[in-house]
C-alpha cells in the first residue's frame, strides 16, 4: 500500500503539465467571475489562457521523455505521448488566439470557454498517455463531455443546440458501447492494464474448439465495441455520422479545434491500444504482426478505404464550406488510418507526421472560413467567388491549404501523405501485399477525387467573378496567422527533415 502511495507521489513529477492545465482550467473559471466588470476582460482572459498553456508547454519541455509508467501504470509518460501533447498544446493555443479575436464566443462567457478548452486539452493529454482501460474511458469522457458543452455554447443558437444534442446522444451511446466492450475485455483478460493485454490475448487465442470460437467472438465483439469509442473520436466509418452535423452547427473556432485536437488524440490512443495490445513486438524491419490470428490490420485497412471513399464522395456534393470540411476531415481520418493498418514503425511515424501537418493545414482552412463568415455571414461556397479580388491573402492562403489538403507538392500535405503511402507501399511487398497495394491505389484514387471538390473552391475563389461585393477585411491578427500557417505549409512542403527527425525521436512508446 505504501509502495502504491509512494509511486503516486513520485508520479506527480511527471504529471506537472497536466496539473497546470487542471488548476489553470479552474483558475480561468474563477477569473471569469473576478473579471466580470473589467473593460479589458477579453484580452485578460485570453492572456491568462495563453499563460496557462505556456506554462504547461514550459513544463512539458522540461520534462524527461524517458518511458516511465505513472500512477501505478494508469498512464504512461513517454516520447510518443509528448509528441502528441505538443500537438494538443498547439491546437489549444491557436484556438485561443482565434477565439480571442473573433465574435463567435460572446464576451460575457468567453472565460468559461477558455476554462473548458483547457479541460479538453487536459483530457487529450490523458488520452495520449492512457495505458489503462479506466484512464482511457475517463479521458475520452472528459474530452467528450466538455466538447458537448462547447459545441452548444451559444444557447440561443438553434443550430448549435441541435449540434450539441446530436453530439451528446451520439457520444454517450458510443462511450456506453465502449464501456460495455471494456467490461467484456476485463472479463476475458482479467486486467485493466493495456500493456499486459498482449500475452493474455495470445494465451486466449491458444484455446481451440468451440470454446476457442466463443472466446474469439467475445474478444472481437469487445474490441469492436471499444473501437466505437475511439472511432467516433477520429470520425471513422461507421462511427462518423455525427461529424458533419456537429461540425456545421458548432461555432467555427471550436469546429476547427475539434477537427484537429480530438482527432489526433484519438489516433494517439488507437496507436497505443492496437500496437500495444494486439500486435507483437516490432521486428528489426520495423514491422509488427497482429497476434491472436485476428485480422486487425485488414479490418482497419477496409475501414480506412471505406472512410476515405465515403468522406470524399460525400464532400463533392456539399456547398456549405464547414460541412465540406467536415467530410474532408472524415476522408483524412481514412488516410491516416492507412498508417494504423500497416502496424509498422513507418506507419506509426506516418500517422504522427500527418496529424502534425493536418493541424496546421486544417486549422488554416477553418480560419479562412471564419474570416469569410465574419465578412459575409455566410459559409456557402458561392460567397467565396472572386475571393482573390476581395482579399488576395485570404484566397491565396486558402488555396495553399486546399492544395496541401489534397496532398500536392510542394505543400506540407504532400509530405504527410508521402509517409503514409510509403508505409503502405512498404507493406506491399510482404505477405498480403496485394491488399496493401490495393489500399494504396484506393488512397491514390481518393486523392484524385478530393482534388475535385477542393479545386471547386479554388476555381470559385480565383476564376469566378465575385457574386457578392462584401468587403473581406480580416483583422490583422487573422492575417498574421494566415500568413504564418501558409508559410509553415510551404516550408514543411520542401523541408520536412525537422518534422521527420522529431517524429522519429518520438516513436518510443512505453511497452509492457
Amino acid at each position, binding site marked *: 500500500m505504501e509502495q502504491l502511495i509512494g509511486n503516486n507521489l513520485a508520479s506527480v513529477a511527471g504529471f506537472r503539465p497536466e496539473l497546470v492545465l487542471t488548476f489553470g482550467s479552474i483558475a480561468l473559471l474563477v477569473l471569469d467571475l473576478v473579471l466580470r466588470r473589467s473593460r479589458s476582460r477579453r484580452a485578460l482572459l485570453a492572456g491568462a489562457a495563453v499563460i496557462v498553456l505556456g506554462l504547461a508547454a514550459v513544463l512539458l519541455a522540461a520534462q524527461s521523455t524517458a518511458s516511465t509508467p505513472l500512477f501505478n501504470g494508469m498512464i504512461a509518460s513517454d516520447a510518443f505521448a509528448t509528441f502528441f501533447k505538443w500537438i494538443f498544446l498547439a491546437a489549444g493555443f491557436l484556438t485561443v488566439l482565434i477565439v480571442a479575436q473573433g465574435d463567435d464566443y460572446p464576451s460575457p462567457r468567453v472565460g468559461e470557454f477558455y476554462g473548458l478548452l483547457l479541460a479538453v486539452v487536459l483530457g487529450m493529454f490523458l488520452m495520449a498517455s492512457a495505458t489503462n482501460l479506466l484512464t482511457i474511458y475517463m479521458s475520452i469522457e472528459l474530452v467528450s463531455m466538455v466538447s*458537448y458543452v462547447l459545441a452548444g455554447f451559444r444557447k440561443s443558437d438553434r443550430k448549435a443546440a441541435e449540434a450539441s444534442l446530436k453530439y451528446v446522444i451520439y457520444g454517450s451511446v458510443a462511450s*456506453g458501447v465502449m464501456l460495455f466492450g471494456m*467490461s467484456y475485455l476485463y*472479463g476475458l483478460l482479467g*486486467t*485493466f492494464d493495456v500493456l499486459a493485454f498482449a500475452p493474455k490475448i495470445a494465451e486466449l487465442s491458444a484455446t481451440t474448439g468451440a470454446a476457442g470460437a466463443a472466446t474469439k467472438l467475445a474478444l472481437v465483439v469487445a474490441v469492436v465495441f471499444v473501437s466505437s469509442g475511439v472511432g467516433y473520436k477520429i470520425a471513422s466509418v461507421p462511427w462518423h455520422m455525427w461529424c458533419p452535423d456537429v461540425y456545421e452547427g458548432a461555432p467555427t473556432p471550436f469546429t476547427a479545434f475539434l477537427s484537429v485536437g480530438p482527432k489526433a488524440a484519438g489516433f494517439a490512443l488507437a496507436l497505443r491500444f492496437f500496437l500495444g495490445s494486439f500486435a507483437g513486438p516490432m521486428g528489426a524491419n520495423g514491422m509488427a504482426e497482429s497476434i491472436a490470428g485476428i485480422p486487425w490490420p485488414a479490418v482497419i485497412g477496409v475501414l480506412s478505404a471505406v472512410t476515405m471513399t465515403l468522406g470524399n464522395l460525400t464532400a463533392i456534393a456539399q456547398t456549405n464550406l464547414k460541412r465540406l470540411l467536415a467530410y474532408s476531415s472524415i476522408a483524412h481520418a481514412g488516410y491516416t488510418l492507412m498508417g494504423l493498418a500497416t502496424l509498422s514503425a513507418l506507419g506509426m511515424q506516418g500517422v504522427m507526421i500527418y496529424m502534425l501537418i493536418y493541424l496546421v493545414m486544417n486549422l488554416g482552412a477553418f480560419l479562412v472560413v471564419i474570416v469569410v463568415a465574419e465578412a459575409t455571414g455566410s459559409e456557402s461556397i458561392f460567397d467565396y467567388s472572386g475571393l482573390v479580388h476581395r482579399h488576395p491573402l485570404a484566397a491565396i492562403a486558402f488555396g495553399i491549404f486546399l492544395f496541401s489538403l489534397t496532398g500536392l507538392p510542394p505543400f506540407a500535405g504532400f509530405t504527410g501523405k508521402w509517409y503514409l503511402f510509403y508505409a503502405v507501399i512498404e507493406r506491399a511487398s510482404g505477405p498480403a501485399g496485394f491488399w496493401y497495394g490495393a489500399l494504396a491505389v484506393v488512397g491514390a484514387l481518393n486523392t484524385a477525387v478530393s482534388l475535385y471538390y477542393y479545386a471547386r473552391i479554388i476555381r470559385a475563389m480565383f476564376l469566378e467573378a465575385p457574386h457578392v461585393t462584401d468587403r473581406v477585411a480580416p483583422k490583422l491578427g487573422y492575417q498574421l496567422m494566415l500568413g504564418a500557417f501558409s508559410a509553415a505549409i510551404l516550408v514543411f512542403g520542401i523541408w520536412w527533415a525537422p518534422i521527420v527527425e522529431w517524429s522519429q525521436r518520438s516513436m518510443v512508446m512505453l511497452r509492457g
Partner: protein
Amino acid sequence: MDANQYIALAAFLFGIGLVGVVVKRNMLVVFMCIELMLNAANLTFLAFARRAGNMNGHAIAFFVIAVAAAEAAVGLAIVIAVFRTRGTLNVDEVASLRN
C-alpha cells in the same frame, strides 16, 4: 447466484438500452436508455470482478456512476437549450442539420 447470470442480465439490460436509444423519440427517454447502458456495463464489471478476484471492476463502477451523473447533467442542460429554441422534445424534429 452465478456470475454468468449477472452477465446475462447485464447483456439483456444493455440490449434494452441500446434498442431504446435507437427507437425512442423522447429525448429524456433516450437519455434514460443511455443510463441503462452504462449501468449494464457496471453490472458486467462487477460480475467479472467477482470472477477475476480483483478490485478493478469495483473501482471503475464508481467512476462510471460519476460519469453517468455528469453526462445526465450535461445532457439535460442541452435538452433544455434545444427545448427553448424549438419547443419540442422529439429527437426526430431536431433534424435541420443534414445531408
